[in-house]
């Protein structure tokens, strides 16, 4: 077969004098969305996980139901680097619409498995091609055309597994898990795996470039997406009111939450300890969160950027009238509808100061699924303690992709419900209290819940000017005192929000500041800088707003601070500059905003390039072009650099 000759030639060149690369590869699968490839990709990812190899899976999907190109990237890495890697080692081409571009974007020496009719073998001489007649093989498995299509996807899992040495037993285990033990679904899928493995064994050339071998780095770990992790956290955080409106990429958060609540929060008599409302829009969703929070529920919603924009007015009311509520923002690419199914960190400015007038909000920023779990609980506590809307800023990459994690720890501390005056306390106070009086000096007043059976319990909540006793007031000194106290409350919050995770490297002149999902690429970039360039770096990972004192001291310890984030303008970098005063000169921005998750190599290269300009800071480096060959397919159609480094 001519194609196998090509493959052999490339493979010989590729592995000349070298041992196979073990447990370090990126598998990129190009399919059509709605074709059922998600199950296949999950099985492939999980089987690698079950072989003990650290792995991540990222779905790069279109805003569409069926028929458009979609990609799934699996990265297996023995050292645990599971951020997105741009360079593809093994490509699986199942989609005629993108096959040519997918191949064009591969680095030399990559392997490419493709569906026979695509006839890609002569498209590049430096790629090892493996032609597989998927339709024919699937046709031998089933008569039904829909089923054949689904099974063709499972056949490629078998082919990849055979080529890389993924164990059949783990594939079967992964299939059993994927199809929840349903024999009717398991049997044909196992048959499809076997079909692919048999074909690869009999008809494809062997490859010795990449291997997956059993190791022991994933024992006892779980695989979960951030939205489900947040849902579990919220449930154990005692959430009682969930009001939401569907929007990608946040919908699965409330949907998982509803599933879990139905399983674990219905009492023996069949009655629920929670209430869920699918609202008519995001305005109503957040209004219900505040109504419920006001009346004493632990309430939350989840949304994405467009929903946050709609919630602005109510969030201002929540801030000014001091009402608890939790809002999860699973960020996607904006502005406007933007790229609804792609990831970004572009809502930082928006949530930090959402709504008109002087406002400022508590924002928690998880960077892992376990922090999604922890912060789901923490956010509910902080909202009630500080009587204010609390945001949790996640993103599509964290929320919708699968991540490895240690199992979540059961919360040992009781929930915190903040300053609530009960009937008994009102009796003690002889009814003398002011809803907005700062009796403790921390800016946080006491509240009562509607329905409290005491004639002095009530107060009138309003978004208009009010005094310590919640009476309407437009008096200048009263207004000023109120908003000054609210600022004091945020000062207090600095002592209670999750502090940054700080890693100081001795002697490092460079410090990184990043947050959220950038963390994965950033840790890997630090490793690359250390091992490849001898550059030591420190790292502060922000976990919340407002900034705590740690930020200033971290910046003061370093000469240059690289703020790495996934938006165009460096929004967190700007907030940091406002915070830092004179030290703001140290801030340099590395920005990744393609809709795809940030990768380590882009950060490393940007730092190296910017460090090279230190002696003569002119001209400013505004863009960094990268060789087209290094691009992964989803970006192959464009020629824009993926990361922008700025000094401003």
């Amino acid at each position, binding site marked *: 077969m001519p194609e196998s000759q090509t493959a052999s030639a490339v493979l010989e060149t590729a592995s000349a004098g070298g041992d196979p690369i073990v447990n370090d590869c990126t598998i990129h699968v190009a399919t059509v969305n709605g074709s059922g490839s998600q199950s296949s990709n999950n099985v492939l990812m999980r089987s690698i996980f079950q072989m003990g190899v650290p792995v991540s899976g990222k779905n790069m999907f279109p805003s569409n139901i069926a028929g458009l190109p979609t990609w799934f990237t699996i990265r297996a890495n023995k050292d645990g680097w599971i951020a997105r890697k741009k360079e593809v080692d093994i490509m699986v081409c199942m989609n005629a619409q993108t096959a040519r571009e997918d191949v064009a974007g591969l680095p030399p020496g990559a392997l490419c498995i493709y569906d026979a009719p695509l006839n890609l073998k002569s498209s590049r001489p430096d790629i090892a091609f493996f032609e597989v007649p998927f339709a024919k093989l699937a046709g031998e498995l089933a008569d039904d055309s829909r089923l054949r299509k689904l099974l063709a996807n499972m056949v490629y899992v078998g082919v990849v597994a055979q080529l890389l040495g993924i164990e059949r037993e783990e594939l079967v285990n992964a299939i059993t898990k994927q199809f929840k033990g349903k024999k009717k679904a398991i049997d044909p899928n196992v048959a499809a795996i076997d079909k692919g493995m048999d074909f690869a064994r009999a008809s494809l050339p062997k490859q010795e470039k990449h291997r997956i071998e059993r190791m022991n780095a994933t024992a006892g770990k779980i695989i979960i997406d951030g939205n489900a992790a947040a849902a579990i956290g919220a449930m154990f955080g005692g959430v009682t009111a969930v009001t939401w409106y569907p929007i990608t990429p946040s919908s699965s958060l409330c949907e998982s939450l509803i599933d879990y609540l139905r399983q674990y929060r219905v009492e023996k008599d069949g009655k629920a300890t929670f209430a869920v409302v699918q609202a008519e829009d995001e305005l109503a969703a957040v209004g219900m969160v505040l109504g419920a929070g006001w009346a004493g529920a632990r309430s939350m919603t989840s949304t994405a950027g467009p929903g946050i924009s709609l919630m602005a007015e109510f969030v201002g009311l929540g801030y000014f009238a001091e009402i608890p509520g939790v809002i999860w923002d699973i960020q996607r690419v904006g502005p406007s509808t933007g790229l609804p199914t792609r990831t970004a960190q572009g809502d930082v400015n928006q949530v930090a100061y959402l709504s008109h007038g002087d406002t400022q909000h508590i924002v928690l920023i998880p960077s892992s699924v376990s922090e999604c779990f922890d912060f789901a609980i923490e956010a509910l506590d902080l909202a009630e303690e500080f009587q204010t809307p609390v945001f949790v800023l996640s993103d599509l990459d964290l929320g919708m992709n699968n991540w490895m994690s240690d199992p979540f720890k059961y919360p040992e501390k009781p*929930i915190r419900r903040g300053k609530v005056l009960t009937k008994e306390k009102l009796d003690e106070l002889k009814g003398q209290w002011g809803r907005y009086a700062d009796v403790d000096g921390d800016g946080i007043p006491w509240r009562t819940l509607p329905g409290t059976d005491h004639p002095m319990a009530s107060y009138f909540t309003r978004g208009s000017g009010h005094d310590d006793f919640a009476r309407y007031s437009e008096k200048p000194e009263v207004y000023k005192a109120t908003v000054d106290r609210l600022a004091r409350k945020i000062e207090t919050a600095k002592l209670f929000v999750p502090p940054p995770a700080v890693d100081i490297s001795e002697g490092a002149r460079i410090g990184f500041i990043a947050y959220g999902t950038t963390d994965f690429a950033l840790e890997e970039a630090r490793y690359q800088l250390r091992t490849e360039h001898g550059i030591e770096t420190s790292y502060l990972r922000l976990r919340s707003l407002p900034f705590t004192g740690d930020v200033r001291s971290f910046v003061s310890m370093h000469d240059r601070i690289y703020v790495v984030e996934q938006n165009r303008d460096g929004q967190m970098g700007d907030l940091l500059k406002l915070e830092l005063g004179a030290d703001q000169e140290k801030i340099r921005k590395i920005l990744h905003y393609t809709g795809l998750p940030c990768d380590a190599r882009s950060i490393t290269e940007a730092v190296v390039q910017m460090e090279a300009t230190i002696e003569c800071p002119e001209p400013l480096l505004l863009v960094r072009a990268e060789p087209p060959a290094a691009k992964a397919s989803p970006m192959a159609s464009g020629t824009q650099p993926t990361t922008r480094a700025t000094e401003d």
Partner: protein
Amino acid sequence: MAESTLKIGTAEVPKENRIGLKATDYHGGKSTLCAGCGHDAISNQIVRAFYEMSVKPERVAKFSGIGCSSKTPAYFLSRAHGFNAVHGRMPAIATGAMLANHHLLGIGVSGDGDTASIGLGQFMHMIRRNIPMIYIVENNGVYGLTKGQFSATADEGSKLKTGVINDLPPMDLCALAVQLGCGFVARGFAGDPKQMVNILKAAIAHNGLAVIDVISPCVTFNNHDGSTKSYTYAKEHDELLHQIGFVPSYEQIEVDYEPGEVKEVTMHDGSRIVLKKIEEAYDPTDATNALVRLKQAESAGQMLTGLVHLQPEKKSFMDLLHVVDEPLATLTLERTRPPREALDKIMQELM
């Protein structure tokens, strides 16, 4: 306005109600609305209805949006928590509050600007969900607080003080509510306190959303000859569907009526609404008929008042949610945090 002749209970208001509270215990702050405002008349009837129904004010939660009408919850039931929300979005706040504590008796006061324009979506979805509370629209056809612009309920051809004529047709909030399946739809007139208080009492007894559209003339901006929401116009064109009486479940007073002229509807709590027919058989449980009558009255330039539609057996949203008996707001940690084994099981499934 026709004078009601239906006699129910004693005319004398006792000094204390059944739970030992005085009428003053139901009062609110001093109104800052214009003298003679229809809204104040409604607030007075709210005070009276809650007092006479012996509802403990602490059990009540008051809601409103933005506008003159939405200021009024500060003018009744000071001993109840109140929430002045954002414009048109009171239903969301009220819905959330009812989720947190379904023992609360909710009463929302909105206006035609607040409900029929910016708040129309939330109004409709609140009806669709059947949130158990009272929702009053103090309807004067005009934006008072912003000094006299037309609202979406202003009648076609009605004239502003400035001489500007309204070219657009009005929205009939009662018809809309009936169409959306609301289980309690009434229209009142701020100038008919007797009818108003009985509608309110019936609304308090209703387990579900009670929408009450009250024609409430704006004495400053819309109470002149060109206005169809003026005292004069409303009095002259009020077409009473029936005289409405209300008998609470605890009262065993016989109703003074001639057989064959009265329709009684029993509410879920055992109270009875007594409707004395005026000119023809009107069955408020028939939604189609209600819509026909509303449309006929509109064509005739009349204002139909009374209990337009009633369907007391309709399930409320809280019934459908099937939550525990206690308010969710005050559940203990033991009931809202599943045990350690639950997390272990979930983690095991994810391995």
